[in-house]
């Protein structure tokens, strides 16, 4: 077992644990927190898988995921707060 | 103008890092894209001192290693709390005062608080940051103001 396999297995275990919180999570915020962690863990998993199979091109996919992860989280939060992705802070009158 | 040149260089390096193929056509396309984006950003007034703060470059050399060290220390602390079967947490909500003047330094301070495991900046009200800490010790450490002083010094070295 190489070191990459060990890291990939640890990441898979963490993904499984975090997914339990996504399913259980009593409020939507617990789900968003866990979903954000799923995003971060999949970035790492993609980078490690590139080494497991000896194909470093996977790192480009990881960069794309890292770019999209934060946008996804903030979009979900904004939609949940205002019910509309285009609303600005003042017109929604939070 | 310094910002435009520096932004062009940063974008070009980003292009070359992602591309990995160095033919004449691709490098020319990269140069054209980098210059065009830098000029567009200049016209949109987003490559100013706030959007691309090159004047903080020197100060970050001393600030970031210290921040990384703090992150490691507090991450180990939170790890010990999670592993402990009793889960010895004492969540605390507190307010800390910012002494920074510029927005960039304030963002740096608030982001440093959030990036350090154990403390999260929840909201900003005027000169104060509302902070949620996982133990009362974490809150007291932050109230002692070491990180605040370092951020102010970080801002000062223009």
């Amino acid at each position: 077992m190489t070191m990459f396999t060990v890291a990939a297995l640890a990441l898979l275990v963490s993904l499984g644990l975090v997914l339990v919180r996504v399913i259980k999570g009593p409020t939507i915020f617990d789900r968003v927190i866990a979903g954000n962690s799923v995003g971060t863990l999949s970035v790492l998993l993609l980078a490690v898988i590139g080494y497991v199979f000896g194909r470093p091109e996977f790192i480009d996919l990881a960069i794309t995921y890292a770019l999209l992860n934060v946008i996804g989280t903030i979009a979900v939060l904004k939609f949940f707060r205002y019910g509309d992705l285009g609303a600005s802070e003042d017109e929604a009158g939070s | 103008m310094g910002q435009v040149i520096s932004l062009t260089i940063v974008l070009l390096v980003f292009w070359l890092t992602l591309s990995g193929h160095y033919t004449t056509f691709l490098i020319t396309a990269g140069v054209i894209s980098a210059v065009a984006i830098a000029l567009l950003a200049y016209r949109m007034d987003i490559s100013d001192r706030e959007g691309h703060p090159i004047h903080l470059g020197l100060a970050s050399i001393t600030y970031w290693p210290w921040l990384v060290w703090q992150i490691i220390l507090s991450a180990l602390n939170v790890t010990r709390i999670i592993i402990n079967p009793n889960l010895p947490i004492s969540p605390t909500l507190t307010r800390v005062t910012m002494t920074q003047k510029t927005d960039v330094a304030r963002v740096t301070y608030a982001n440093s608080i959030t990036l350090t495991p154990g403390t999260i900046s929840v909201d900003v009200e005027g000169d104060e940051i509302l902070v949620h800490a996982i133990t009362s010790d974490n809150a007291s450490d932050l109230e002692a103001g070491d990180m605040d002083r370092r951020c102010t010094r970080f801002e000062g070295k223009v």
Partner: protein
Amino acid sequence: MDAALYFLSWALLAGGGFFCVVGAVGILRMPDAFTRLHAASIIDTLGVGMIIAGLMVQSGLTLTTARLGIILVLVFFTSPVASHAIARSMRHRNVKPVLSEDRTGEGS
């Protein structure tokens, strides 16, 4: 490969995997959403930092290392923004954290 570098990257990858599992266990064990954010930030800092550093040691001074560096910087700049956005919208939605001590003087 040099034996010292080999052991360094083994240690970094194993440590990073360990901290990811710890963060995930923390997200499961913590009692409310605010404290879960603290556990999630372990994954975002030490987990990401150590695994990416381990992969960087493995590939040496190549273009791959530069790309891994981009991922590292990206995650370190964006993860506090996401955490803060979550915390702030919880406060605006009036989610009350479970507190053992409140030093704000709001009595909330």
